[in-house]
C-alpha cells in the first residue's frame, strides 16, 4: 500500500473526525454541566444543516449560513431548555432523555413537512471548490477548511473556559451547582447558556457536514449514534475525551474504508465495545458517575 495514499486517507479521517468532535463536544458539554443527555442532538444537527442551506440560499453566501445557523439554532436550543427541559430538573435522569427523544420525532417530521422527505444537495462554497496540491497528493480544499475552522473553534472554547471569568463560573458550576447558587450565581442562566451552546455546536457540525454528506431529514440518526460512540469512548463530560475520541473514530473509519469498505460503518462500534470492556468509564471519563 502506498504511504502517501495512507497519509491522504489519514487527513480525510481528521476532517471527518473534526465534524464528529464538534458534534460530540456539544453533547458532552451539556452533560458535564446539566447532567442531561440530549437525544435530539442528532435532529438538531440535521436542522442546523437545513438552516445553513436555507440561510445560504437566502443571503446568497455560504458564509452567512455558516455564521447565522449555529446562532439561530442555538437560540432555539435555549428556548427548548427554557420551555421543556427546565421542568425536569430534579426528576429521574431518564426523563430529559425521554423528552428529547420525543422532541427529535417532532423536529424530524417538522423538517419533512417544510423541506420534503428527499435529500437536498448542499453546494460547496465557490471559494473552496477543488483540490489543493499537498506535495504528496491532492486534497479537497473544503475539508482542509473544516479542519482549520474546527481547530479555531476548539481553541476559542478552550481559552474561554480556562482564561475568562465566564469560563470559571461554568467550570465551578459543573463541579458544584449548589455552592455556586450560595455564592450568588444564577445557575439557571448558566445552564440555559450552556444548553444553547451545546445545540449551537450541533448546528455548526450540521452546516460543516452539509457539503460532505447529503442533507436529508434522516441524517441525524446516524450522527446521534456517532456522537454517542465518540462521547462513550472519550468519557462522558470530558472535553479532551471528545476531541481525542472524535479524531480516533474519524481516522479509524477512513483507514478501514481504505482496506475493507464494508466494515467502515461497523468499526467505530467495535472500537467502542473494546474500550468499554477495558475501561467502562471511557478514556478520559471519571469513574463513579457513569460506570
Amino acid at each position, binding site marked *: 500500500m502506498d504511504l502517501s495514499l495512507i497519509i491522504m486517507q489519514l487527513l480525510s479521517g481528521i476532517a471527518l473526525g473534526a465534524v464528529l468532535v464538534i458534534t460530540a463536544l456539544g453533547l458532552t458539554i451539556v*452533560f458535564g454541566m446539566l447532567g442531561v*443527555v440530549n437525544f435530539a442532538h442528532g435532529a438538531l444537527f440535521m436542522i442546523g444543516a437545513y438552516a445553513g442551506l436555507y440561510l445560504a440560499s437566502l443571503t446568497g453566501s455560504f458564509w452567512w449560513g455558516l455564521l447565522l445557523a449555529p446562532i439561530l439554532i442555538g437560540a432555539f436550543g435555549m428556548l427548548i431548555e427554557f420551555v*421543556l427541559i427546565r*421542568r*425536569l430538573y430534579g*426528576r429521574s*435522569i*431518564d*426523563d430529559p*432523555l*425521554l*423528552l428529547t*427523544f*420525543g*422532541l*427529535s*420525532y*417532532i423536529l*424530524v*417530521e*417538522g423538517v*419533512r*413537512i417544510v423541506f420534503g422527505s428527499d435529500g437536498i444537495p448542499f453546494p460547496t462554497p465557490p471559494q473552496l471548490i477543488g483540490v489543493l496540491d499537498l506535495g504528496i497528493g491532492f486534497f479537497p480544499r473544503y475539508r482542509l477548511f473544516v479542519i482549520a475552522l474546527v481547530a479555531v473553534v476548539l481553541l476559542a472554547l478552550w481559552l474561554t473556559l480556562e482564561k475568562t471569568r465566564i469560563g470559571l463560573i461554568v467550570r465551578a458550576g459543573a463541579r458544584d451547582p449548589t455552592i455556586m447558587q450560595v455564592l450568588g450565581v444564577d445557575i439557571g442562566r448558566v445552564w440555559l447558556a450552556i444548553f444553547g451552546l451545546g445545540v449551537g455546536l450541533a448546528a455548526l457540525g450540521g452546516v460543516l457536514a452539509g457539503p460532505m454528506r447529503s442533507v436529508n431529514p434522516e441524517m441525524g*440518526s*446516524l450522527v*446521534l*449514534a456517532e456522537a*454517542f*460512540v465518540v*462521547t*462513550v469512548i472519550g468519557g*462522558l463530560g470530558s472535553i479532551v475525551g471528545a476531541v481525542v475520541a472524535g479524531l480516533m473514530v474519524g481516522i479509524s473509519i477512513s483507514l478501514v474504508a481504505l482496506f475493507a469498505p*464494508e*466494515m467502515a*460503518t*461497523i468499526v467505530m*462500534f*467495535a472500537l*467502542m*465495545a473494546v474500550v*468499554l*470492556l477495558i475501561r*467502562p468509564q471511557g478514556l478520559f471519563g471519571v469513574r463513579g*458517575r*457513569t*460506570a
Partner: protein
Amino acid sequence: MTSPPSGEVIAEPAPSGLSRILDHRVLLSIVVLALLPWLLPSKALAVNVLIYGVVVMGYNLLFGYTGLLSFGQAAFFGAGAYFTGIAIGRYGVPWFAAVPIAVFLSTCLAAAIGIVSTRTRGIYFSMVTLALAQLVYYVALQAASFTGGENGLRGFTVDRISLFGLHVNFLDPVNKYYVLMAFAGLAMWFQSRILNSPFGAVIEAIRENEQRARACGYDVERSKLVVFMLSGAISSLGGCMLALHLSIVPLDILHYQTSGMIVMMVLLGGARSFFGPFVGAASFLILEDVISLWTPHWQIFVGAIFVLFVLFLPKGIWGTMLDALGVGKARP
C-alpha cells in the same frame, strides 16, 4: 439471613374483591386479548397490537421492573424475526423448530450485548445500548447475502400451521390472530413467573436502590445481565411472531427508531405494570392508524403526545389508572 422475599408473599391486609380478581393477571390478559380482534377496527391492527405487546412486555422487564433504560431493544425484536425467516427460508426448518432456534440465538445476541452494556450505568447504558443496536443494524445491512440487506428478508411464507395432526390455515386473519395469541400467552405466563420468583424481587430491589441490593449480597451485575437476556428473549419472540405474520422482515425493524417506538409504547401504557405494555402498544398503533388517515405526518403528533406524557403523565395510561383505583400488589 432468611430467604429473600418473593414478589407477592408480603401479606396484604384483606385484599378487596377487585384486587383479588386482578391478581390473576395472565388469565385476565389472555381474556382481554382474545376479545381484541372484535373490538378493534381491523384484524391486522389486532395482530400488530399482539406482536408489539409481546415485544414491549419483554422490554418492560428491563425498563419498568429493573429500571434500565435501554435504547436498543430493536436488536432483539429484529434478531427474532431475521433468525426465524432465515431458518425457515434458507434452511427449510419447520416453523415450530424455527421459533425456539430464533429465540435461543437472539438470547445469545442479548448475552453478547448485555456483557458490554451492563458494565455501564445510568445514561451511559442508554447510549451504549443504542450504539450496539445500531451496530446490529449495520451488520444486517452489510450481510445482504443472508439478510437481503436494504430490501429486507423475503422468500419464506408460512401458510399452514400444523401441529399434532391439526392443520390450521394461517392465511386466514382470525386463525392467524389466535395462533399468535398462543405465543403471547406463553410469553405472558413466562414473564409472570419471572416477576413472581425471588429473582423478580431482586431486579425490583436493584431498581429501587442498587447499592442496597449489592449490600444485601445480591450479585447486581449478574442479575442485570440475566434480566437483559430474559428481556431480549421475550422481545425476540415478538420478532418471531412478526416474521410468521408478515412473511417478510423489513430492515427498518432493526433501526433505532424501532427501539424508540418500543420505549414510547411502554411509557404510553405504563412501565412497571403487567398489562401496560399491551395498552401502550394498542394506544400507539391506534393513534398511528387514526392520524395517518388524514396526514402522512403522524409522527409529529405522536412525538408531541409522547412529550406531553413525559411531562405530565409519566406513569402512562394504564399505570395512572391502576394508581387511581389503588388495586393489586401485583400491578396487573
